[in-house]
């Protein structure tokens, strides 16, 4: 049986041995994303550095191989990005898996996550692939919506180490 190249060894490795799947000790923010129809759920956390870039990214949760591998590849990609860059990459990823962006030169920005481009031909799996990206984007946008991000960050670090709070 010919298996679509999507489920390649590199992909399976991300799904089964994700480098970024762990409970982060001191996240700046965490946010839970759920796909009710498939039961995929993950909580994504990031810690921002002093300069506002993403210093560490990690997730916990459960779901299909596509949602898990996608979250792992995304985490790797996001380290050292600013929140604004991260949101742009989330938008690009969503365009890719909906088949709206197919230019390899553009998709290069997604690094390994570009291997998920075939999802564009699997409409039932789009939600699985985009769960992590949607969750990250929602979290960053909610965070960015506050007047002083830095102030909120330090407040969160001072008072809340529970890691499971929604972004307010």
């Amino acid at each position, binding site marked *: *049986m*010919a*298996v*679509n190249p999507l*489920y390649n060894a590199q992909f*399976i490795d991300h*799904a*089964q041995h994700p480098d970024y799947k762990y409970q982060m000790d001191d996240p700046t923010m965490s946010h839970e994303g759920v796909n009710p*129809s*498939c*039961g995929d759920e993950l909580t994504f956390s990031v810690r921002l550095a002093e300069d506002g870039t993403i210093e560490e990214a990690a997730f916990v949760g*459960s*779901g*299909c*191989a*596509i949602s898990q591998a996608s979250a792992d590849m995304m985490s790797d990609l996001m380290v050292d990005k600013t929140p604004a860059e991260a949101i742009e990459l989330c938008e690009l990823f969503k365009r890719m898996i909906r088949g709206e962006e197919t230019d390899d030169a553009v998709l290069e920005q997604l690094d390994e996550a570009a291997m998920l481009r075939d999802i564009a031909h*699997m409409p*039932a*799996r789009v939600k*699985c692939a985009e769960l992590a990206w949607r969750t990250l984007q929602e979290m960053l946008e909610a965070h960015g919506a506050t007047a002083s991000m830095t102030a909120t960050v330090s407040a969160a670090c001072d008072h809340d180490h529970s890691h499971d709070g929604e972004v307010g």
Partner: protein
Amino acid sequence: MLTPEQLRDITESPYKADFPLLAKHPEIVFLDSAATAQRPACVLDAERTFYETMNANPLRGLYRLSVEATESIEAARARIASFIGAVDGTGKPQASQIVFTRNASESLNLVARTLPQVVGLGPGDDVVISIMEHHSNIIPWQQVCAATGANLVYLRLDDDFTITQDEVEAKIGPAAKIVSVTHVSNVLGVENDVAAIAARAHQMGAKMVVDGAQSVPHLSIDVKALGCDLLAFSAHKMGGPMGIGVLWGTSELLDAMPPFLTGGEMIDSVTETSAVWAPVPQKFEAGTQDAAGSYAFDAALAYLQDHDMAALETREHLLATYLTDQLAALDFVHVIGPADGARHVGAVAFNVEGVHPHDVASILDMGNVCIRAGHHCAQPLLAYLGESSTCRASIAFYNDKQDIDALVEGLKTVWQVFNGS
């Protein structure tokens, strides 16, 4: 385990040639008939024949075409009635007991919206359903209970996936006014002893509703033997068109139930302030019906009868047994439901160890094997079983051993993709 003779009987399918999609696409391994069945050519032809030879709005016309359209609907009703044993003492089909809807879901919604009034459902009364219901037989009753103050009570399964008589007697008591249970689970494929549940319901003075969406396509049904008051099912799961459902009920109950949808075709007379309902079944059929769909459903049932429903049932029993046995023989597959294949009607739920059902289904699809994966519109059942989602393979008489063997090969590939060869 099947005998060599039984295996030989299911090695090939003499029926696939009758089903255009399967005949034109021999590469497709269709194991999702519990979601919707394939349709034989005679059903597709019937849909076209209706529009080419008898197309007119039924019921109201006084000219020949409209009369023919009306007669085609009534002939369909009569065949459906015969098919489920809704006949009088002389064997005459009780066509007026057949109400056309869009699907089994609509039939159940019709019942949930009208039966409570007949039984005077109120605070403190019980509506009893089972934990293995499809959402279509849960949500309407949740709504009814929220509106009336009645309690929603669940019959639960034991470790052997059975609703025991003890459970039935414990849950269906004097407070029960309505009992609504599926005949066959769309996830587990197990058959419930609906006759025993109906007997208890009637003993307690409750009305018995049966969701037959997964049983009428596969089992020879006799509503008198089931002992139910109302039975809902869908044409599209038995070779008929999508968009046609049936509600069967006893004449006494259908007469007592108020209309569901109102408007054209369901009245005898209308004044500025009131209306007199048409007799059953028209009382429940507001607006222009899918007459071509009814005519095509008639053709689907004729196909099943011409090929001997009992013989098809026997074949499906062998296929379901083989399917369960083959899945159980894979050490990385976990069957969710009875290990005994003979207890499966149509469907078998399973999971591949360590692989999410959606990945299983996607990889199987790469080999043209079609199965369902997810919660199967039965989230309370999956929660009760401690599963967030499962794979489900389901058969119909047109399947054969080769289809099931292709599924098994596909599952081996799934395992290799995730675990190396």
